[in-house]
Protein backbone atom coordinates (compact mmCIF):
# COMPACT_ATOMS: atom_id res chain seq x y z
CA UNK A 1 0.00 0.00 0.00
CA UNK A 2 2.64 2.50 1.00
CA UNK A 3 4.58 1.91 -2.21
CA UNK A 4 1.45 2.77 -4.26
CA UNK A 5 0.88 5.81 -2.12
CA UNK A 6 4.42 7.02 -2.67
CA UNK A 7 4.17 6.69 -6.43
CA UNK A 8 0.84 8.48 -6.36
CA UNK A 9 2.23 11.25 -4.22
CA UNK A 10 5.20 11.68 -6.54
CA UNK A 11 2.94 11.86 -9.56
CA UNK A 12 0.75 14.43 -7.86
CA UNK A 13 3.76 16.50 -6.86
CA UNK A 14 5.07 16.40 -10.42
CA UNK A 15 1.69 17.42 -11.84
CA UNK A 16 1.38 20.27 -9.36
CA UNK A 17 4.90 21.39 -10.05
CA UNK A 18 4.21 21.47 -13.77
CA UNK A 19 1.02 23.39 -13.18
CA UNK A 20 2.85 25.89 -10.97
CA UNK A 21 5.41 26.47 -13.71
CA UNK A 22 2.60 26.96 -16.23
CA UNK A 23 0.95 29.34 -13.77
CA UNK A 24 4.03 31.52 -13.62
CA UNK A 25 4.70 31.48 -17.37
CA UNK A 26 2.78 34.71 -18.07
CA UNK A 27 4.96 36.50 -15.52
CA UNK A 28 8.09 34.93 -16.95
CA UNK A 29 7.00 36.10 -20.39
CA UNK A 30 6.67 39.67 -19.11
CA UNK A 31 10.14 39.64 -17.58
CA UNK A 32 11.68 37.95 -20.62
CA UNK A 33 10.05 40.49 -22.94
CA UNK A 34 11.22 43.41 -20.86
CA UNK A 35 14.82 42.23 -21.27
CA UNK A 36 14.79 41.90 -25.06
CA UNK A 37 15.88 44.51 -27.57
CA UNK A 38 12.85 45.92 -29.39
CA UNK A 39 13.59 44.08 -32.62
CA UNK A 40 13.51 40.69 -30.87
CA UNK A 41 10.30 41.32 -28.97
CA UNK A 42 8.03 40.85 -31.94
CA UNK A 43 9.72 37.77 -33.30
CA UNK A 44 7.70 34.69 -34.03
CA UNK A 45 8.13 31.95 -32.82
CA UNK A 46 8.34 33.41 -29.31
CA UNK A 47 11.81 33.40 -27.79
CA UNK A 48 11.84 32.40 -24.14
CA UNK A 49 15.48 33.22 -23.56
CA UNK A 50 16.14 36.92 -23.86
CA UNK A 51 19.33 36.82 -25.85
CA UNK A 52 20.90 39.30 -26.28
CA UNK A 53 19.53 40.68 -23.01
CA UNK A 54 19.30 44.41 -22.45
CA UNK A 55 18.19 46.74 -19.70
CA UNK A 56 17.38 49.51 -22.19
CA UNK A 57 13.64 49.41 -21.51
CA UNK A 58 14.21 49.76 -17.79
CA UNK A 59 16.58 52.63 -18.32
CA UNK A 60 14.06 54.22 -20.66
CA UNK A 61 11.08 54.01 -18.34
CA UNK A 62 13.06 55.05 -15.29
CA UNK A 63 15.35 57.76 -16.61
CA UNK A 64 14.61 58.92 -20.13
CA UNK A 65 12.93 62.23 -20.75
CA UNK A 66 10.42 60.76 -23.19
CA UNK A 67 6.84 60.16 -22.30
CA UNK A 68 7.68 56.80 -20.76
CA UNK A 69 9.71 58.68 -18.17
CA UNK A 70 6.45 59.13 -16.35
CA UNK A 71 6.91 55.59 -15.12
CA UNK A 72 9.87 56.59 -13.00
CA UNK A 73 7.98 59.45 -11.48
CA UNK A 74 4.88 57.27 -11.13
CA UNK A 75 6.92 54.73 -9.21
CA UNK A 76 7.88 57.40 -6.69
CA UNK A 77 4.28 58.64 -6.53
CA UNK A 78 3.04 55.14 -5.81
CA UNK A 79 5.61 54.69 -3.05
CA UNK A 80 4.65 57.97 -1.39
CA UNK A 81 0.95 57.21 -1.59
CA UNK A 82 1.28 53.62 -0.39
CA UNK A 83 3.55 54.44 2.53
CA UNK A 84 1.39 57.40 3.48
CA UNK A 85 -1.67 55.19 3.41
CA UNK A 86 0.01 52.55 5.56
CA UNK A 87 0.97 55.09 8.22
CA UNK A 88 -2.47 56.68 8.28
CA UNK A 89 -4.36 53.37 8.32
CA UNK A 90 -2.22 51.64 10.91
CA UNK A 91 -2.19 54.73 13.13
CA UNK A 92 -5.90 55.52 13.07
CA UNK A 93 -7.13 51.96 13.24
CA UNK A 94 -4.80 50.97 16.08
CA UNK A 95 -5.94 53.98 18.09
CA UNK A 96 -9.59 53.28 17.33
CA UNK A 97 -9.41 49.53 17.88
CA UNK A 98 -7.91 49.94 21.35
CA UNK A 99 -10.92 51.43 23.16
CA UNK A 100 -13.23 49.22 21.12
CA UNK A 101 -11.41 46.15 22.44
CA UNK A 102 -10.47 47.19 25.96
CA UNK A 103 -12.76 49.93 27.34
CA UNK A 104 -16.37 50.31 28.21
CA UNK A 105 -17.97 53.55 27.15
CA UNK A 106 -21.33 54.80 25.92
CA UNK A 107 -21.95 54.28 22.23
CA UNK A 108 -19.35 51.55 21.85
CA UNK A 109 -21.58 48.96 20.20
CA UNK A 110 -23.04 51.54 17.85
CA UNK A 111 -19.65 52.87 16.74
CA UNK A 112 -18.32 49.39 16.19
CA UNK A 113 -21.37 48.21 14.25
CA UNK A 114 -21.28 51.22 11.95
CA UNK A 115 -17.58 50.72 11.23
CA UNK A 116 -17.94 47.01 10.55
CA UNK A 117 -21.15 47.54 8.59
CA UNK A 118 -19.27 49.89 6.28
CA UNK A 119 -17.25 46.93 5.04
CA UNK A 120 -20.27 46.25 2.87
CA UNK A 121 -19.99 49.59 1.06
CA UNK A 122 -18.57 48.90 -2.39
CA UNK A 123 -15.91 51.41 -3.42
CA UNK A 124 -17.56 51.95 -6.78
CA UNK A 125 -20.63 53.29 -5.00
CA UNK A 126 -18.87 56.23 -3.35
CA UNK A 127 -16.73 57.07 -6.37
CA UNK A 128 -18.68 60.08 -7.60
CA UNK A 129 -19.45 61.73 -4.24
CA UNK A 130 -15.87 61.13 -3.11
CA UNK A 131 -14.70 62.89 -6.24
CA UNK A 132 -17.02 65.83 -5.51
CA UNK A 133 -15.66 66.01 -1.96
CA UNK A 134 -12.01 65.81 -2.92
CA UNK A 135 -12.55 68.38 -5.64
CA UNK A 136 -14.14 70.74 -3.13
CA UNK A 137 -11.21 70.29 -0.79
CA UNK A 138 -8.89 71.20 -3.65
CA UNK A 139 -7.21 67.80 -3.36
CA UNK A 140 -7.44 66.59 -6.95
CA UNK A 141 -4.02 65.50 -8.26
CA UNK A 142 -2.44 65.71 -4.82
CA UNK A 143 -0.91 63.07 -2.57
CA UNK A 144 -3.45 63.70 0.18
CA UNK A 145 -6.25 63.28 -2.35
CA UNK A 146 -4.99 59.75 -2.94
CA UNK A 147 -3.84 58.86 0.57
CA UNK A 148 -6.77 59.97 2.71
CA UNK A 149 -9.62 58.28 0.78
CA UNK A 150 -7.48 55.17 0.38
CA UNK A 151 -6.87 55.06 4.13
CA UNK A 152 -10.56 55.59 4.85
CA UNK A 153 -11.40 52.46 2.85
CA UNK A 154 -8.97 50.23 4.75
CA UNK A 155 -9.72 51.80 8.15
CA UNK A 156 -12.80 49.63 8.84
CA UNK A 157 -10.94 46.44 8.01
CA UNK A 158 -8.02 47.59 10.17
CA UNK A 159 -10.24 48.28 13.17
CA UNK A 160 -11.85 44.89 12.82
CA UNK A 161 -8.56 43.02 12.44
CA UNK A 162 -6.76 44.82 15.28
CA UNK A 163 -9.69 44.67 17.68
CA UNK A 164 -9.81 40.89 17.29
CA UNK A 165 -6.16 40.74 18.22
CA UNK A 166 -6.30 43.27 21.07
CA UNK A 167 -9.08 41.19 22.66
CA UNK A 168 -6.60 38.35 23.14
CA UNK A 169 -4.06 40.37 25.15
CA UNK A 170 -4.26 39.33 28.84
CA UNK A 171 -5.81 41.91 31.15
CA UNK A 172 -3.17 41.26 33.83
CA UNK A 173 -0.55 43.08 31.80
CA UNK A 174 -2.68 46.20 31.62
CA UNK A 175 -3.65 46.02 35.28
CA UNK A 176 -0.05 45.71 36.40
CA UNK A 177 0.94 48.76 34.37
CA UNK A 178 -2.00 50.76 35.70
CA UNK A 179 -1.04 49.88 39.28
CA UNK A 180 2.47 51.09 38.50
CA UNK A 181 0.91 54.45 37.65
CA UNK A 182 0.80 54.26 33.85
CA UNK A 183 -2.02 56.10 32.11
CA UNK A 184 -4.17 54.70 29.31
CA UNK A 185 -1.97 56.17 26.61
CA UNK A 186 1.15 54.61 28.13
CA UNK A 187 -0.54 51.22 28.36
CA UNK A 188 -1.47 51.50 24.70
CA UNK A 189 1.90 52.72 23.48
CA UNK A 190 4.20 50.62 25.68
CA UNK A 191 2.27 47.39 26.09
CA UNK A 192 -0.44 46.90 23.48
CA UNK A 193 1.42 48.20 20.43
CA UNK A 194 4.66 46.26 21.02
CA UNK A 195 2.71 43.07 21.69
CA UNK A 196 0.72 43.51 18.49
CA UNK A 197 3.59 43.81 16.07
CA UNK A 198 2.73 40.74 13.97
CA UNK A 199 -0.84 41.83 13.37
CA UNK A 200 0.18 45.45 12.81
CA UNK A 201 2.64 44.20 10.19
CA UNK A 202 -0.07 42.12 8.54
CA UNK A 203 -2.32 45.18 8.37
CA UNK A 204 0.52 47.29 7.03
CA UNK A 205 1.18 44.78 4.24
CA UNK A 206 -2.50 44.57 3.44
CA UNK A 207 -2.85 48.36 3.28
CA UNK A 208 0.30 48.68 1.21
CA UNK A 209 -0.90 46.12 -1.29
CA UNK A 210 -4.30 47.66 -1.75
CA UNK A 211 -2.92 51.20 -2.07
CA UNK A 212 -0.12 50.12 -4.40
CA UNK A 213 -2.55 48.29 -6.66
CA UNK A 214 -5.56 50.59 -6.58
CA UNK A 215 -6.57 51.79 -9.99
CA UNK A 216 -10.06 53.22 -10.28
CA UNK A 217 -9.80 55.98 -7.66
CA UNK A 218 -6.44 57.36 -8.86
CA UNK A 219 -7.68 57.13 -12.43
CA UNK A 220 -10.29 59.77 -11.70
CA UNK A 221 -8.68 61.68 -8.81
CA UNK A 222 -5.51 62.55 -10.73
CA UNK A 223 -5.51 64.49 -13.96
CA UNK A 224 -1.91 65.68 -14.06
CA UNK A 225 0.47 63.22 -15.67
CA UNK A 226 3.26 63.93 -13.18
CA UNK A 227 0.97 62.87 -10.30
CA UNK A 228 -0.12 59.51 -11.78
CA UNK A 229 0.56 56.50 -9.62
CA UNK A 230 2.04 53.46 -11.34
CA UNK A 231 -1.11 51.54 -12.37
CA UNK A 232 -2.65 54.61 -13.99
CA UNK A 233 0.58 55.55 -15.75
CA UNK A 234 0.93 52.00 -17.08
CA UNK A 235 -2.68 51.71 -18.21
CA UNK A 236 -2.51 55.00 -20.07
CA UNK A 237 0.88 54.15 -21.53
CA UNK A 238 -0.77 51.11 -23.04
CA UNK A 239 -3.27 53.33 -24.84
CA UNK A 240 -0.48 55.51 -26.23
CA UNK A 241 1.62 52.68 -27.61
CA UNK A 242 1.38 50.32 -30.53
CA UNK A 243 2.00 46.65 -30.03
CA UNK A 244 5.58 47.12 -31.18
CA UNK A 245 6.38 49.09 -28.04
CA UNK A 246 5.70 46.35 -25.57
CA UNK A 247 9.24 46.59 -24.20
CA UNK A 248 8.84 49.69 -22.02
CA UNK A 249 5.34 48.65 -20.94
CA UNK A 250 6.58 45.24 -19.85
CA UNK A 251 9.54 46.80 -18.05
CA UNK A 252 7.08 49.07 -16.25
CA UNK A 253 4.86 46.12 -15.39
CA UNK A 254 7.82 44.18 -14.02
CA UNK A 255 8.94 47.20 -11.99
CA UNK A 256 5.45 47.61 -10.58
CA UNK A 257 5.60 44.09 -9.16
CA UNK A 258 8.98 44.61 -7.51
CA UNK A 259 8.05 46.28 -4.18
CA UNK A 260 5.34 43.75 -3.41
CA UNK A 261 7.61 40.91 -4.42
CA UNK A 262 10.20 42.15 -1.94
CA UNK A 263 7.58 42.55 0.79
CA UNK A 264 6.26 39.11 -0.05
CA UNK A 265 9.65 37.44 0.13
CA UNK A 266 10.49 39.12 3.44
CA UNK A 267 7.13 38.58 5.06
CA UNK A 268 5.76 35.52 3.29
CA UNK A 269 4.37 33.99 6.43
CA UNK A 270 2.87 37.24 7.62
CA UNK A 271 1.02 37.77 4.38
CA UNK A 272 -0.47 34.31 4.60
CA UNK A 273 -1.31 34.95 8.22
CA UNK A 274 -2.84 38.28 7.26
CA UNK A 275 -4.92 36.67 4.56
CA UNK A 276 -6.03 34.07 7.06
CA UNK A 277 -6.92 36.67 9.65
CA UNK A 278 -8.69 38.83 7.12
CA UNK A 279 -10.53 36.01 5.47
CA UNK A 280 -11.70 33.78 8.23
CA UNK A 281 -11.00 35.07 11.65
CA UNK A 282 -11.72 38.60 10.50
Amino acid at each position, binding site marked *: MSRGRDAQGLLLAAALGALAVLWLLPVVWVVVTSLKPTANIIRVPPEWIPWPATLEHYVEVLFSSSRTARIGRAFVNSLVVSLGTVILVVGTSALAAYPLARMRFPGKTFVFSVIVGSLMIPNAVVLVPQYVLVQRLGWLSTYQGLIVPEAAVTFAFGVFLLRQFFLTIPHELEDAALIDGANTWQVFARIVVPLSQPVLAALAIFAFRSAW*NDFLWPLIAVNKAEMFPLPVALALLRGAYSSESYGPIMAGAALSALPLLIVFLIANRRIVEGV*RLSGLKG
Partner: protein
Amino acid sequence: MARRRGLTAYGFLAPGLLLFAAFRVYPLLDGLRLSFTNARLGRPAQAFVGLANYERLLEDTRFHVSLWNTLFYTVASTLPILAIPLLLAVALNRGTMRTVLRGAFFFPFTLSVVTVGLTWLWLLDPVVGPFNYYFGWLVGRGRSWLSEPGTAMWVIIATTVWWVAGYYLVIYLAGLQDIPRDLYESAALDGAGAIRSFWAITLPLLRPVLLFVFVTHIIGSFQIFGQVFVLTQGGPGDSTRTVVQHLYETAFQNFFAFGAASAMAWVLFAIILVFSLLQFRLLRGHTEL
Protein backbone atom coordinates in the same frame (compact mmCIF):
# COMPACT_ATOMS: atom_id res chain seq x y z
CA MET B 1 -15.48 58.53 36.30
CA ALA B 2 -17.61 56.96 33.58
CA ARG B 3 -17.57 60.26 31.80
CA ARG B 4 -13.80 60.46 31.88
CA ARG B 5 -13.58 56.96 30.54
CA GLY B 6 -15.88 57.98 27.71
CA LEU B 7 -13.71 60.99 26.96
CA THR B 8 -10.54 58.89 26.88
CA ALA B 9 -12.18 56.33 24.60
CA TYR B 10 -13.40 58.95 22.17
CA GLY B 11 -10.02 60.63 22.29
CA PHE B 12 -8.53 57.42 20.89
CA LEU B 13 -11.34 57.07 18.40
CA ALA B 14 -11.36 60.66 17.19
CA PRO B 15 -8.81 60.59 14.33
CA GLY B 16 -10.22 57.41 12.85
CA LEU B 17 -13.84 58.45 13.23
CA LEU B 18 -13.13 61.78 11.59
CA LEU B 19 -11.53 60.04 8.62
CA PHE B 20 -14.31 57.51 8.50
CA ALA B 21 -17.17 60.00 8.75
CA ALA B 22 -15.72 62.36 6.16
CA PHE B 23 -14.63 59.81 3.55
CA ARG B 24 -16.98 56.88 3.97
CA VAL B 25 -20.25 57.86 5.65
CA TYR B 26 -20.63 61.31 4.14
CA PRO B 27 -19.88 60.25 0.52
CA LEU B 28 -22.29 57.35 0.82
CA LEU B 29 -25.14 59.65 1.84
CA ASP B 30 -24.10 62.40 -0.53
CA GLY B 31 -24.20 59.86 -3.37
CA LEU B 32 -27.79 59.07 -2.54
CA ARG B 33 -28.63 62.78 -2.60
CA LEU B 34 -26.78 63.25 -5.91
CA SER B 35 -28.78 60.43 -7.47
CA PHE B 36 -31.91 62.58 -7.13
CA THR B 37 -30.31 65.60 -8.81
CA ASN B 38 -29.10 66.52 -12.26
CA ALA B 39 -25.60 67.29 -10.99
CA ARG B 40 -22.83 67.46 -13.55
CA LEU B 41 -19.11 68.03 -13.37
CA GLY B 42 -18.48 71.70 -12.66
CA ARG B 43 -22.12 72.60 -12.28
CA PRO B 44 -22.65 73.82 -8.75
CA ALA B 45 -26.40 74.45 -9.08
CA GLN B 46 -28.11 71.10 -8.86
CA ALA B 47 -31.82 70.79 -9.33
CA PHE B 48 -33.77 68.11 -7.57
CA VAL B 49 -35.18 65.81 -10.24
CA GLY B 50 -36.82 63.16 -8.11
CA LEU B 51 -36.61 59.68 -9.54
CA ALA B 52 -35.80 60.84 -13.08
CA ASN B 53 -32.29 59.34 -13.05
CA TYR B 54 -33.64 55.99 -11.94
CA GLU B 55 -36.43 56.12 -14.49
CA ARG B 56 -33.91 56.82 -17.21
CA LEU B 57 -31.93 53.76 -16.16
CA LEU B 58 -34.98 51.67 -16.94
CA GLU B 59 -34.74 52.81 -20.55
CA ASP B 60 -30.94 52.95 -20.85
CA THR B 61 -30.18 49.91 -22.98
CA ARG B 62 -26.44 50.31 -22.50
CA PHE B 63 -26.98 50.11 -18.76
CA HIS B 64 -29.04 46.95 -19.25
CA VAL B 65 -26.28 45.43 -21.35
CA SER B 66 -23.72 46.36 -18.69
CA LEU B 67 -25.84 44.85 -15.98
CA TRP B 68 -26.32 41.70 -18.01
CA ASN B 69 -22.59 41.44 -18.74
CA THR B 70 -21.76 41.95 -15.09
CA LEU B 71 -24.22 39.24 -14.15
CA PHE B 72 -22.86 36.91 -16.82
CA TYR B 73 -19.31 37.52 -15.66
CA THR B 74 -20.29 36.90 -12.04
CA VAL B 75 -22.14 33.66 -12.73
CA ALA B 76 -19.67 32.28 -15.25
CA SER B 77 -16.64 32.96 -13.08
CA THR B 78 -18.12 31.55 -9.88
CA LEU B 79 -17.56 27.86 -10.49
CA PRO B 80 -13.91 28.15 -11.62
CA ILE B 81 -13.15 30.53 -8.77
CA LEU B 82 -14.67 28.23 -6.20
CA ALA B 83 -13.37 24.97 -7.62
CA ILE B 84 -9.87 25.58 -8.99
CA PRO B 85 -8.34 26.98 -5.77
CA LEU B 86 -10.16 24.30 -3.79
CA LEU B 87 -8.70 21.47 -5.85
CA LEU B 88 -5.26 23.08 -5.63
CA ALA B 89 -5.62 23.48 -1.88
CA VAL B 90 -6.62 19.86 -1.36
CA ALA B 91 -3.72 18.70 -3.51
CA LEU B 92 -1.30 21.05 -1.76
CA ASN B 93 -2.52 20.44 1.77
CA ARG B 94 0.21 17.90 2.42
CA GLY B 95 3.60 17.37 0.91
CA THR B 96 6.96 18.97 1.19
CA MET B 97 6.74 21.36 -1.75
CA ARG B 98 3.70 23.02 -0.29
CA THR B 99 5.24 26.35 0.62
CA VAL B 100 7.04 26.84 -2.67
CA LEU B 101 4.06 25.85 -4.80
CA ARG B 102 1.69 27.94 -2.71
CA GLY B 103 3.99 30.89 -3.35
CA ALA B 104 3.89 30.23 -7.10
CA PHE B 105 0.10 30.23 -7.20
CA PHE B 106 -0.16 33.19 -4.82
CA PHE B 107 2.25 35.36 -6.76
CA PRO B 108 -0.18 36.76 -9.38
CA PHE B 109 -2.36 38.07 -6.56
CA THR B 110 0.40 40.47 -5.57
CA LEU B 111 0.27 42.06 -9.03
CA SER B 112 -1.96 45.02 -9.69
CA VAL B 113 -4.98 44.59 -11.88
CA VAL B 114 -3.30 46.78 -14.47
CA THR B 115 -0.17 44.64 -14.54
CA VAL B 116 -2.31 41.54 -14.82
CA GLY B 117 -4.26 43.07 -17.69
CA LEU B 118 -1.12 44.14 -19.55
CA THR B 119 0.42 40.71 -19.05
CA TRP B 120 -2.50 38.94 -20.65
CA LEU B 121 -2.85 41.53 -23.36
CA TRP B 122 0.69 40.76 -24.39
CA LEU B 123 0.30 37.02 -23.98
CA LEU B 124 -2.79 37.00 -26.19
CA ASP B 125 -1.56 39.46 -28.81
CA PRO B 126 -2.99 38.03 -32.02
CA VAL B 127 0.20 38.53 -34.01
CA VAL B 128 3.20 38.22 -31.72
CA GLY B 129 1.76 36.80 -28.47
CA PRO B 130 3.05 33.34 -27.53
CA PHE B 131 -0.39 31.98 -26.68
CA ASN B 132 -1.65 32.14 -30.22
CA TYR B 133 1.57 30.70 -31.52
CA TYR B 134 1.14 27.51 -29.52
CA PHE B 135 -2.62 27.50 -29.89
CA GLY B 136 -2.29 27.86 -33.64
CA TRP B 137 0.25 25.04 -33.63
CA LEU B 138 -2.25 22.78 -31.82
CA VAL B 139 -5.45 23.80 -33.55
CA GLY B 140 -4.23 25.18 -36.82
CA ARG B 141 -5.14 28.82 -36.52
CA GLY B 142 -4.93 31.51 -33.85
CA ARG B 143 -7.68 33.99 -32.99
CA SER B 144 -7.95 37.54 -31.79
CA TRP B 145 -9.36 36.59 -28.45
CA LEU B 146 -10.01 40.09 -27.24
CA SER B 147 -11.64 41.48 -30.34
CA GLU B 148 -14.22 38.74 -30.74
CA PRO B 149 -17.43 39.23 -28.76
CA GLY B 150 -17.69 35.49 -28.17
CA THR B 151 -14.32 35.15 -26.44
CA ALA B 152 -13.49 38.54 -24.90
CA MET B 153 -15.50 38.01 -21.70
CA TRP B 154 -13.98 34.55 -21.24
CA VAL B 155 -10.51 36.05 -21.45
CA ILE B 156 -11.51 38.48 -18.69
CA ILE B 157 -12.76 35.57 -16.61
CA ALA B 158 -9.62 33.49 -17.19
CA THR B 159 -7.45 36.47 -16.33
CA THR B 160 -9.33 37.02 -13.10
CA VAL B 161 -9.15 33.35 -12.10
CA TRP B 162 -5.41 33.39 -12.71
CA TRP B 163 -5.09 36.58 -10.66
CA VAL B 164 -7.09 35.64 -7.54
CA ALA B 165 -6.85 31.83 -7.36
CA GLY B 166 -3.81 32.01 -5.08
CA TYR B 167 -5.62 34.21 -2.59
CA TYR B 168 -8.51 31.80 -2.26
CA LEU B 169 -6.07 28.91 -2.22
CA VAL B 170 -4.52 30.31 0.95
CA ILE B 171 -7.94 30.77 2.52
CA TYR B 172 -8.91 27.20 1.67
CA LEU B 173 -5.61 25.92 3.07
CA ALA B 174 -6.32 27.71 6.33
CA GLY B 175 -9.72 26.05 6.42
CA LEU B 176 -8.32 22.63 5.58
CA GLN B 177 -5.83 22.84 8.40
CA ASP B 178 -8.66 23.26 10.86
CA ILE B 179 -10.15 19.90 9.87
CA PRO B 180 -9.00 17.25 12.36
CA ARG B 181 -6.63 14.76 10.76
CA ASP B 182 -8.14 11.74 12.56
CA LEU B 183 -11.40 12.15 10.66
CA TYR B 184 -9.54 11.18 7.51
CA GLU B 185 -7.72 8.37 9.29
CA SER B 186 -10.88 6.76 10.55
CA ALA B 187 -12.48 7.20 7.14
CA ALA B 188 -9.48 5.47 5.57
CA LEU B 189 -9.86 2.63 8.07
CA ASP B 190 -13.46 2.28 6.96
CA GLY B 191 -12.16 1.87 3.43
CA ALA B 192 -12.97 5.33 2.07
CA GLY B 193 -10.72 6.49 -0.74
CA ALA B 194 -9.47 10.01 -1.38
CA ILE B 195 -12.45 11.01 -3.48
CA ARG B 196 -14.96 9.61 -1.01
CA SER B 197 -13.26 11.46 1.86
CA PHE B 198 -13.33 14.66 -0.13
CA TRP B 199 -17.10 14.52 -0.58
CA ALA B 200 -17.88 13.14 2.87
CA ILE B 201 -15.46 15.10 5.07
CA THR B 202 -13.64 17.94 3.32
CA LEU B 203 -16.52 19.54 1.50
CA PRO B 204 -19.07 19.57 4.35
CA LEU B 205 -16.54 20.84 6.89
CA LEU B 206 -15.30 23.53 4.52
CA ARG B 207 -18.81 24.84 4.02
CA PRO B 208 -18.31 28.12 5.92
CA VAL B 209 -15.08 28.78 4.00
CA LEU B 210 -16.75 28.01 0.69
CA LEU B 211 -19.54 30.35 1.58
CA PHE B 212 -17.06 33.07 2.47
CA VAL B 213 -15.21 32.68 -0.84
CA PHE B 214 -18.51 32.57 -2.71
CA VAL B 215 -19.85 35.79 -1.25
CA THR B 216 -16.52 37.65 -1.39
CA HIS B 217 -16.27 36.71 -5.03
CA ILE B 218 -19.81 37.80 -5.84
CA ILE B 219 -19.44 41.17 -4.14
CA GLY B 220 -16.13 41.74 -5.92
CA SER B 221 -17.51 40.59 -9.27
CA PHE B 222 -20.28 43.11 -9.32
CA GLN B 223 -17.62 45.80 -9.17
CA ILE B 224 -15.30 44.46 -11.85
CA PHE B 225 -13.57 47.28 -13.68
CA GLY B 226 -9.78 47.18 -13.99
CA GLN B 227 -9.55 44.02 -16.10
CA VAL B 228 -12.18 45.38 -18.49
CA PHE B 229 -10.57 48.80 -18.69
CA VAL B 230 -7.15 47.43 -19.59
CA LEU B 231 -8.12 44.47 -21.75
CA THR B 232 -11.12 45.61 -23.78
CA GLN B 233 -12.43 49.01 -22.62
CA GLY B 234 -15.87 47.41 -22.74
CA GLY B 235 -15.60 46.17 -26.31
CA PRO B 236 -15.82 44.68 -28.81
CA GLY B 237 -19.11 46.48 -29.22
CA ASP B 238 -20.46 46.51 -25.71
CA SER B 239 -19.81 42.83 -25.15
CA THR B 240 -17.62 43.29 -22.06
CA ARG B 241 -19.03 46.57 -20.80
CA THR B 242 -19.74 46.21 -17.06
CA VAL B 243 -21.72 48.38 -14.67
CA VAL B 244 -18.67 50.10 -13.20
CA GLN B 245 -17.17 50.70 -16.64
CA HIS B 246 -20.48 52.26 -17.67
CA LEU B 247 -20.61 54.30 -14.48
CA TYR B 248 -17.05 55.49 -14.96
CA GLU B 249 -17.73 56.60 -18.52
CA THR B 250 -21.01 58.26 -17.61
CA ALA B 251 -19.47 60.23 -14.77
CA PHE B 252 -15.94 60.92 -15.93
CA GLN B 253 -15.53 60.40 -19.67
CA ASN B 254 -18.51 61.12 -21.85
CA PHE B 255 -21.28 62.97 -20.12
CA PHE B 256 -19.95 63.96 -16.68
CA ALA B 257 -23.44 63.19 -15.47
CA PHE B 258 -22.87 62.79 -11.75
CA GLY B 259 -26.56 62.43 -10.94
CA ALA B 260 -27.14 59.62 -13.42
CA ALA B 261 -23.94 57.84 -12.39
CA SER B 262 -24.95 58.07 -8.71
CA ALA B 263 -28.25 56.41 -9.54
CA MET B 264 -26.32 53.55 -11.18
CA ALA B 265 -24.11 53.34 -8.11
CA TRP B 266 -27.10 52.97 -5.84
CA VAL B 267 -28.71 50.32 -8.01
CA LEU B 268 -25.41 48.44 -7.82
CA PHE B 269 -25.28 49.00 -4.07
CA ALA B 270 -28.79 47.62 -3.67
CA ILE B 271 -27.83 44.45 -5.54
CA ILE B 272 -24.66 43.99 -3.53
CA LEU B 273 -26.49 44.69 -0.29
CA VAL B 274 -28.95 41.90 -0.98
CA PHE B 275 -26.04 39.50 -1.45
CA SER B 276 -24.26 40.73 1.68
CA LEU B 277 -27.36 40.31 3.80
CA LEU B 278 -27.85 36.87 2.33
CA GLN B 279 -24.30 36.10 3.40
CA PHE B 280 -25.03 37.07 6.96
CA ARG B 281 -28.18 34.95 6.99
CA LEU B 282 -26.35 31.96 5.57
CA LEU B 283 -23.25 32.32 7.71
CA ARG B 284 -25.06 32.88 10.96
CA GLY B 285 -26.36 29.34 10.89
CA HIS B 286 -22.88 27.86 10.64
CA THR B 287 -20.29 30.00 12.35
CA GLU B 288 -20.48 32.40 15.24
CA LEU B 289 -19.89 35.58 13.27
